[in-house]
């Protein structure tokens, strides 16, 4: 980076007419205009101190302070985040080393004085399944809505629809949870029962599970509604940026609207949509309150989406009030770290895909 810090003097000089009168600009920048200005000044004003101090380096103090402050912030951020993870790891390492079962494959979770056996397999399954179902349900709808807003509707309707979908994002997750458990889940329960009761119920994934409506499926549906605004907004941005000439080329070749979209908009926007889906997935993975309120827990791990379970976030939130010993805290932190790794991986994929898409375009 080049050093663009100019020399300045502090000697006040009459600024000749016609010069830039921006008060933030030091008067002596007129030096750039050449010596004539100075010469003129010396004719009409008392002897200037200019010549004596013209070459004096200005005080660099404010600059140093400022750059120091920003550097300090940068260092602080690195240190803070590093410290966070160091701390989390250290707290988790103790219980992990004393864990009596395999952390990654066991579905047991017993953290007491007598027995320390905790495994995240159950949570991992429930978290991933609910989030993936949510993503699979939300993404097609989001693409459809984004296409509607950008191509299929009038601008006025498009703006309205866009505004309404953004409104979904303003609803706090605890409201989703309350609405989900008291209003929504009971309504879709008959559908779940029908599927589980039919021949589809022979598949372990769709086997009947709970009698109540606190199923993984219900939670996944609510998650889908929650991530819809994010995926829609990002897809919409991407679709809007499709190069006009691609679109017009397709029109010129006689394509129907769908064909135009299929050939011009979607390929261009594919990476953006994938990135948006990944971000939505990340959000679904980390969603806490709505899942905690809707999902019932079960004693024995069950594959079925019509049964209950726990996600990382919901388990931590349910028990967060009782972390009274470092061992317990460490076990839950270990689970939290796995969740974090998941969301980080998903977000990283999103970033890579988005960057790749930008590079292509």
């Amino acid at each position, binding site marked *: *980076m080049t050093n*663009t*810090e100019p*020399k300045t003097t502090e000697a006040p000089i009459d600024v000749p007419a016609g010069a830039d009168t921006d008060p*933030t*600009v*030091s008067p002596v*920048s007129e*030096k750039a205009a050449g010596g004539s200005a100075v010469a003129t000044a010396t004719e009409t004003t008392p002897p200037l101190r200019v010549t004596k101090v013209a070459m004096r380096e200005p005080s660099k103090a404010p*600059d140093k302070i*400022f*750059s120091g*402050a*920003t*550097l300090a*912030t*940068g260092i602080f*951020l*690195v240190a803070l*985040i590093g410290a*966070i*993870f160091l701390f*989390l790891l250290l707290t988790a390492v103790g219980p992990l080393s004393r864990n009596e079962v395999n952390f990654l494959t066991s579905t047991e979770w017993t953290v007491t004085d007598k027995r320390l056996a905790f495994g995240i397999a159950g949570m991992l399954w429930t978290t991933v399944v609910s989030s993936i179902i949510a993503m699979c349900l939300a993404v*097609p709808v*989001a693409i*459809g*809505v984004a296409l*509607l807003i950008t191509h299929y509707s009038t601008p006025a309707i498009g703006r309205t629809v866009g505004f*309404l979908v*953004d409104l*979904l994002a*303003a*609803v*706090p997750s605890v*409201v989703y949870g*309350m*609405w989900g458990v008291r209003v929504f889940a009971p309504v879709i329960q008959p559908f779940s029962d029908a599927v589980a009761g039919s021949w589809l119920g022979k598949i372990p994934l769709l086997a009947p599970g709970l009698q109540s409506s606190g199923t993984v499926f219900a939670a996944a549906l609510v998650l889908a*509604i929650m991530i819809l605004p994010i995926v829609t907004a990002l897809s919409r941005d991407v679709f809007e940026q499709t190069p006009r000439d691609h679109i017009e080329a397709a029109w010129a070749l*006689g394509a*129907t*609207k*769908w064909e135009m979209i299929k050939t011009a908009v979607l390929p261009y926007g594919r990476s953006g949509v994938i990135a948006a889906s990944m971000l939505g997935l*990340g959000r679904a993975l*980390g969603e*806490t*309150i709505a899942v905690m309120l809707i999902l019932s827990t079960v004693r024995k791990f069950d594959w079925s989406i019509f049964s209950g379970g726990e996600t990382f*976030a919901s388990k931590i*939130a349910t028990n*967060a009030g009782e*972390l009274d010993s*470092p061992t317990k*805290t460490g076990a*839950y932190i270990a689970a*939290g*770290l796995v*969740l*974090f790794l998941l969301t980080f991986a*998903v*977000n*990283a994929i999103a970033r890579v895909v988005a960057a790749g898409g930008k590079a292509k375009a």
Partner: protein
Amino acid sequence: MSDTVNETPAQVDLSRPTGKRQMVDNLIRGLVWIAAAVAIVPLFWILGTVVAKGAPLLFTAEPDYTRICAVEAKAPTKEFLDYKRVAASECDKDDTDNAKNIWLSGGKYPGVNEFVAYRPVTPLTKDPNAAASGGGIVIKGREPQAQKQSVVGIPSSDKAGTVRTASADWWTKDQSATDLREVGGGALHSIIGTLELGLITSLIAVPLGILGAIYLVEYARGKGFSKVVSFMVDILTGVPSIVAALFIYAVAITILGGTRSTMASALALVLLMLPTVLRSTEEMLKLVPDSLREASYALGVPKWKTIMNVVLPTARKGILTGIVLGMARVMGETAPLIILLNYGPRLEWNPTSNNMGSLPTQIMGATEVAANYPGAERGWGAALTLILIVMGLNLIARTVGRSKKSR
């Protein structure tokens, strides 16, 4: 393409392909509109529920009790006496064996000839006008305050309904005098708590975010260390709110032995708001053309002044948008609040105190009573208030972002 472009259109109508292609096109068009409907329906469902249940609370209040004239409908079973409402004139008659006045908690009442399960809900549903039982409480040295009768609503209509009166209580009172199972009070403590939380979080996150972004864009662009910082911020972006809350809990409470407080939850929220502010500021700063910077340097302006007086003002609108959006996100976060803050029903300004109200935790509290209690309904009111605040912030961000640049 089978229907090729032709200077003499003749029989080929380019805008109306026929057959299979058109079918597919129409199908997709239909699907797209269906998708929009699928997206909008839950929105109206949720918002409809929230507004229907919560809006009345924002500008009306129910009286403590509503009085109706009723007869016992059948012999009481369990503890739920069943009464049937009858015309008010029945109670004016002298015989007291049949119709009598009963007081229903809150403003709700059935219509004439409809039934109500009249069950004692609080110590006060013993008729508030009845004589006291024995074993009294005497307040030494003080005459019991002469109490005015409450607005005991007496429905004028024969139909079922709610007696409500216009009231700004929601915005001016807190819940320190009201039980979850009773009407009364407002949400002032929660509103102030949420706003205060957002303010404190912003006061910490915004300077850090802006300084960090300035560092990345102005001082360290391209340098190795900036990549490290950028990577760290990416990590922070991916931290779910529950993990951030867990971290603060583990450090501040389990290890350092501190207590739950607004400051603790503000710290967790800072971890969530910081990356948003930093990234959006960074993007905005990058958008400022280098020519502006170089012109400023050419005029002899020191670097820090350039940043403060040239770069930042240019990016001001985008930065503000990022801040407001970050605040909107953070105000709706519940997980850090339930772990790091106890819900207190009393208006509290002190950020280091143990208890503080906030809208998300008030909503959570509403899930702890049965759905027909006033406390649960106040939860919907709090939900609507929170949505309005978040929407308001989003609108501000949008307006600020869209207003014409002065340059």
